[in-house]
């Protein structure tokens, strides 16, 4: 139960209990009605037939389609995560530079790539690559480059916010003991900023993992493509079961990552290793200590 819920109502009295019971009853009836409606619709369109669900208990479906698809998704997500973190780190630090000729171009790059709809960017790279580099299969390259540029730009903002969240006294003390600019950043600011950034970084990685599904549109062989194009093509009519199975895999992966982000946030709130408070994920409400986990806007 969220804390908001307890803010809104007291321990119920006799009348409120009756009202709550009526509400519960109505809600149960409504939910049951919706589920029954879905059941009927499935029945009418023959979606309960064992024939279309059967492929998912055969091991070949998993070894030939779902697992390779999942590996494709994870490969794109893994590559893009590493590259986006490098891109984000470089550009985040460049935006903090004392030299305007580094700071301003880096700022422009970050702002522009954050504003471009990701799919347009992926399409553009996908069509640009063959005309520049010659023909070949650029689905993975286009997907990873697009994801890197977009998520890297968002992460650059996270890095900037993280370094800025370290109290000023830390860098002043570091300068006072004679460190140079690079030493202050490398030995004092970054180690503390990383602790503060971790939850926001992980929730941005959830966004990145979800966005790998855009590869479906340029026919990159990922989980969505296997599940939605290839499995229903091989096993005729298995579209809905396939959607449910790959939906569960996506939701499971993302919820596990989100849980990791929440755990990291709690840990870094307690941590004494960093003087900086954990920073909000991009797009989230700037309210400290809401204690409701973290999620980035996508």
């Amino acid at each position, binding site marked *: *139960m*969220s*804390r*908001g*819920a307890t*803010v*809104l*109502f007291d321990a119920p009295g006799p009348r*409120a209990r009756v009202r*709550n019971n009526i*509400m*519960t009853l109505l*809600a*149960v009836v409504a*939910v049951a009605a919706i589920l029954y409606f879905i059941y009927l*619709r499935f029945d009418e*369109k023959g*979606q309960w037939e064992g024939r279309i669900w059967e492929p998912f208990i055969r091991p070949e479906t998993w070894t030939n389609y779902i697992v390779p698809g999942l590996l494709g998704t994870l490969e794109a997500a893994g590559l893009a995560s590493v590259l986006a973190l490098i891109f984000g780190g470089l550009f985040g630090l460049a935006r903090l530079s004392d030299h305007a000729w580094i700071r301003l171009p880096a700022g422009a790059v970050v702002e522009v790539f954050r*504003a*471009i*709809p*990701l*799919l*347009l960017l992926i*399409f*553009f790279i996908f*069509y*640009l690559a063959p*005309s520049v580099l010659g023909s070949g299969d650029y689905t993975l390259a286009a997907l990873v480059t697009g994801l890197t540029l977009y998520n890297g730009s968002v992460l650059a903002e996270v890095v900037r916010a993280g370094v800025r969240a370290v109290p000023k006294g830390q860098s002043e003390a570091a300068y006072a003991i004679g460190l140079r600019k690079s030493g202050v950043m490398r030995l004092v600011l970054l180690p503390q900023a990383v602790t503060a950034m971790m939850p926001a970084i992980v929730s941005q990685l*959830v966004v990145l993992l*979800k966005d*790998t*599904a*855009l590869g*479906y*549109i340029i026919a990159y062989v990922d989980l*969505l493509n296997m599940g*939605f194009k290839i499995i*229903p093509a091989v096993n005729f009519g298995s*579209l*809905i079961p396939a*959607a449910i199975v*790959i*939906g569960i895999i*996506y*939701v499971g992966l*993302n*919820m596990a990552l*989100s849980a990791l982000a929440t755990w990291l946030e709690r840990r870094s709130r307690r941590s004494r290793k960093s003087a900086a408070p954990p920073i909000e994920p*991009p*797009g*989230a*409400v*700037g*309210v400290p200590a*809401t204690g*409701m986990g973290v*999620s980035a*806007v*996508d």
Partner: protein
Amino acid sequence: MDDLIKYAPALWEGFLKNVQLSLICAVLSLTLGTILVSMRVAPTPILRAVGAGYVNVVRNTPLTLVLAFSALGLSDTLGFVFSDEPRSNGFWLVTLGLSAYTATFVCEALRSGINTVPLGQAEAARAIGLTFFQSLTMIILPQAFRVVIAPLGSVMIAMIKNTTVAIAAGYLAESAFVMKDTFDDTGVSIPIFIGLVVAFMAVTLPIGFFTGWLANRLAVAR
């Protein structure tokens, strides 16, 4: 540059579809998001569970899957059809999927807004005899909305950019498809890409500034 001028009418028409989609989805997702957040803070445990379940499942599903499922699953397999005309059917399927997806982010933003409303506000509302629904609509939500204007702005900007994914639902009229179609015809064209990016920025940047300004103006003084 010639490419951009030559294809500008088609691209503009596609872009207008994105704007249409955005406007309808903005209304629907804000409404659905408010309903969802009311469920998530309701005194009835089953409503809370349903709200939380919906938000967690849909928010963690890739938008591409949501949209592809609305077209291939809901419409083609299960027979939920809005219109016999494929293009307008596609339009409403995208609206449905994108609103259902965006509503979860609206709900999460509002919920963190509700968490910032001081306990005393709700207690005072109960003390003067307001019911749960009255205190939610008259006391809590108005304050929660004012806190989360800027985050809601980011949600709306993300939604506008997400209208380009409509192609996954088989809706082949908006600007991302027109751009792809043009590239298929004439090969890649940098001016066309830049033109579209500028068009999107012309919509999203003012929204960012406006919601930022509005957030300051309407900030709840505490």
